[in-house]
């Protein structure tokens, strides 16, 4: 890890940071020229389709693919026996003589003491049995989509139904059918722990509250569905065009699945049409497609339909959370105990990581309870499998925490804002789990959000059917442990012979604008003009690396790597300029495309002049300008010797915020109209206000859906939602005005003081809305989504 020079950059001195720079990939997108994997067409390309299980739980007795194989236009048919492996998040396990297992480092193994072993529970195509309606059984590659579809109808599957379980409580019962034979009680993982002494904490409390909250399956609804194009060259190299947040990690997993060196896999993902956490892992479809391409020796495209996207691409984990909190009479939290049951569906995917995050970040973090105990069961059921989704367990956890805080506020007769301020996290705080908060602007966020929504006035002079509610968040920038003892990235900067710069980034642009933000950081650091930098990413053959764009880490982790690379390149550039200007390099600086003598700025050179000298002139050291930078966050892993984390904890930096919402509820129809959302965030440092606001606004859209209308309804194990007509996404005319408040706290770790901001705004929406509804009409709904019928039911309960 390269040591970073802490660069203080005053806002007034910044050329690009803090400015509304137009996104660098904007023109291509608005002209319809941005190409995604489904826009790739190669000569001889085949289309793949997957045959899926019509039943929830069955043993496969026989699959007859002969009619499909002999159909005109069909080039290959695969079943489970053709792909003898199982995989899960971060693990691939082949089963034959040579078993390839992950080799955890010592610390990672220790981490596993708290977080469960990676679970390789999914074969790309069913082996032995199917476990949910939609499970992959067989795959076909054919000359076009219609032929592939028709070929699926020619595959005959003989199965023997097995008893199924749809609810975790049934799945855990004695004698319940086992979904995965190696998991007794269908418990995929059981996470337990305690920091501090909750029994004492509850004894110290004047009041103890216990409430249960339920959340639902939420669909990511990325506009671009999952899928890929796979193509082998004649020498055993595989190129995969796909929509993915983690190209380098995907490369690793696919290489392990195919048992080829990692360098033989190239992932191309220049543009991603939305992801939100659903595209952070290898999918069965990647392996199936690669195998089909290998067997047919043709490029193969596999694209999920929207219907498949709803049940096969992963959705948000539904939590049933029982939260027990002890508070003193004056509102201080003395202890927090949480019991969670998670419906994991048929396969684990990222279930453990999501639960782990919820249990170790917001639960012990928000309002820093001095004692904390947790017990979470992740339970298999015969239903669609959820995975990570923006917030990664935090929205589920915070719905419980922040709904209950308002219940507490009412009982104690303390204003909800006062209660938050009393318990707010402060800079320097250490949580019971060992997380050290460095920069923290939570108090300012609460105060400004409350003011902006008009809290005092609207609580004092309450209008009928109208209410205001508020909720806070505790999240992180990045997280350590998902892939090992690392949270890192590499970036490279190369100067071209005309003085322009090429920036190679490992971070993946998902639409969040990280490509633009990183370009701004590079331009600011290098002192070149931003229009002279071309940023390149989405290609694992580039000299870069990044674990991926998730956990709000792109600008935070890759930002530092980019800054280090740019610093590195700038030093080399100044050395060459020093030769040309005949002054020592320390007397030079660069800004807006010019390298100049600090004490005599008129003595200057352009980047082009320096480049010409380096490439074609008599530059004595003869080396080209290539700056490489990398950064690994100074976060830590769980230390089994002390039973918690050494500071700073799982992330180097934690993020905070507060949202306030005003609603108007129709007591006859239960319709909740959101009148305004105010969102205040501790962002460290604003790199690009337009892009930052875009993240907040988009997250609030998803949060409002989470709170009020979105749910993948499942009945008898069958996913009822088949297209957007059955999944209620808010449209442009359903959105309230959103006010964003950005609090800059100058983080000590992020480049120029920034923090990650992709996820936080998603976290407090649901409880803020729930609290506003309670204020409006006295209906407390503890189950998401807060539909009209649930509001009516809650009102009827009150009568």
């Amino acid at each position, binding site marked *: 890890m390269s040591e970073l020079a802490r660069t203080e950059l005053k806002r007034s001195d910044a050329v690009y940071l803090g400015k509304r720079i*137009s996104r660098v990939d904007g023109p291509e997108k608005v002209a319809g020229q941005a190409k995604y994997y489904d826009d790739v067409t190669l000569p001889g390309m085949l289309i793949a389709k997957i045959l899926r299980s019509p039943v929830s739980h069955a043993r496969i007795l026989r699959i007859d693919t002969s009619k499909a194989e002999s159909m005109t236009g069909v080039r290959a048919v695969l079943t489970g026996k053709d792909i003898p492996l199982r995989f899960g998040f971060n693990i691939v396990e082949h089963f034959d003589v040579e078993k390839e297992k992950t080799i955890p480092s010592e610390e990672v193994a220790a981490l596993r003491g708290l977080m469960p072993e990676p679970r390789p529970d999914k074969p790309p195509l069913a082996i032995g049995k199917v476990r949910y309606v939609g499970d992959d059984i067989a795959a076909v590659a054919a000359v076009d989509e219609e032929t592939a579809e028709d070929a699926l109808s020619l595959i005959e599957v003989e199965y023997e139904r097995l008893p199924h379980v749809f609810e975790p409580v049934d799945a855990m019962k004695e004698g319940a059918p086992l979904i995965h034979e190696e998991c007794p009680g269908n418990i995929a993982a059981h996470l337990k722990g305690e920091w501090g002494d909750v029994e004492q904490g509850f004894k110290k409390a004047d009041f103890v509250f216990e409430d249960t909250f339920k959340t639902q399956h939420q669909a990511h609804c990325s506009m671009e569905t999952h899928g890929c194009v796979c193509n082998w060259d004649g020498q055993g190299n595989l190129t995969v065009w796909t929509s993915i947040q983690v190209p380098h990690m995907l490369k690793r997993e696919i290489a392990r699945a195919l048992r080829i060196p990692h360098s033989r896999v190239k992932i191309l993902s220049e543009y991603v049409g939305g992801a939100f956490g659903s595209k952070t892992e290898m999918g069965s479809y990647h392996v199936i497609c690669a195998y089909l391409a290998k067997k047919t020796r043709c490029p193969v495209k596999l694209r999920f339909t929207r219907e498949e996207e709803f049940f096969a691409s992963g959705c948000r984990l539904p939590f049933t959370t029982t939260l027990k909190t002890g508070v003193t009479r004056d509102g201080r939290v003395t202890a927090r105990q949480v019991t969670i049951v998670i419906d994991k569906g048929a396969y684990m995917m990222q279930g453990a990581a999501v639960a782990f995050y919820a249990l170790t970040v917001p639960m012990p973090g928000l309002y820093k309870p001095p004692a904390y105990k947790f017990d979470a069961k992740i339970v298999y059921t015969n239903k669609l499998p959820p995975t990570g989704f923006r917030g990664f367990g935090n929205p589920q956890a915070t719905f419980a925490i922040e709904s209950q805080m308002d219940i507490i506020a009412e009982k104690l007769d303390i204003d909800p804002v006062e209660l938050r301020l009393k318990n707010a996290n402060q800079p320097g705080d250490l949580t019971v789990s060992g997380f050290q908060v460095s920069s923290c602007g939570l108090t300012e966020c609460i105060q400004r959000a409350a003011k902006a929504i008009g809290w005092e006035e609207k609580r004092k002079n309450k209008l009928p059917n109208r209410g205001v509610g508020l909720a806070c968040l505790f999240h992180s920038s990045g997280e350590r442990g998902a892939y090992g003892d690392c949270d890192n990235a590499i970036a490279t900067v190369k100067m071209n012979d005309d003085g322009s710069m090429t920036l190679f980034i490992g971070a993946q642009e998902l639409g969040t604008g990280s490509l633009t933000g990183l370009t701004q950081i590079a331009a600011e650091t290098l002192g070149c003009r931003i229009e002279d930098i071309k940023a390149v990413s989405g290609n694992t053959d580039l000299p870069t690396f990044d674990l991926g764009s998730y956990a709000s880490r792109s600008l935070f982790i890759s930002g530092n790597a980019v800054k280090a690379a740019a610093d590195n390149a700038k030093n080399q550039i100044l050395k060459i300029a020093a030769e040309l200007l005949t002054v020592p390099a320390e007397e030079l600086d660069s800004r807006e495309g010019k390298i100049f003598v600090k004490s005599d700025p008129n003595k200057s050179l352009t980047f082009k002049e320096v480049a010409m000298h380096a490439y074609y002139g008599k530059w004595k050291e003869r080396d080209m300008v290539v700056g490489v930078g990398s950064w690994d966050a100074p976060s830590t892993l769980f230390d089994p010797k002390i039973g918690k984390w050494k500071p700073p904890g799982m992330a180097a930096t934690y993020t905070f915020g507060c949202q306030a919402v005003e609603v108007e509820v129709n007591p006859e129809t239960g319709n909740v109209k959101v009148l305004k959302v105010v969102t205040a965030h501790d962002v460290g440092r604003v790199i690009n206000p337009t*892009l930052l*606001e875009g993240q907040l606004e988009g997250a609030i859209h998803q949060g409002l859906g989470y709170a009020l209308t979105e749910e993948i309804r499942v009945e008898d194990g069958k996913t009822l939602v088949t297209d957007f007509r059955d999944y209620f996404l808010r449209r442009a*005319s359903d959105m309230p005005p959103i006010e964003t408040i950005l609090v800059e706290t100058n983080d000590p770790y992020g480049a120029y003081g920034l923090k990650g901001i992709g996820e936080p705004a998603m976290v407090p929406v649901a409880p803020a809305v729930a609290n506003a509804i309670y204020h409006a009409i006295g209906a407390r709904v503890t189950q998401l989504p807060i539909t009209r019928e649930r509001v009516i039911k809650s009102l009827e309960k009150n009568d």
Partner: protein
Amino acid sequence: MKCMQSKLHINGYDYDVILKPHENLREVLRRIGFKGVKKSCDVGGCGVCTVLLDGRPVYSCCTFAAWAEGKQITTVEGLASPEELDLIQRNFVEKGASQCGFCTPGLVLVAEALLKRNPQPSEAEVRREIAGNICRCTGYVKVVDAILAASKKR
């Protein structure tokens, strides 16, 4: 199956195509090479496949390609190139109305049609007009900003 020889008028040019009887316009346009017509949902739910038919936005995934013969079809490619964007497109870029970009072509076309028909729409009118297009990234805030800004600059 009787495939048909058909002439489609796309972005001002005639294209000779051979159509299957039931092929929808989205598939045909993408097949010819208009990849700016995107594919997100299965049918009629999201708007990313929006094209203009005789200047009016329709879902190309729900339109038989043969049905569109004789009509003016406009895709995003018919508007401008990345080097010379039109007013609405420039505002989309400046205001941050495009994030992942997948829904952008459809939205731009709806905006083009709206401002032709109603050059000074209110915010409510803009929101209603684009309500047939799903965006999962922006929350629509900056999309509306961009369209209103473009309408003011005309």
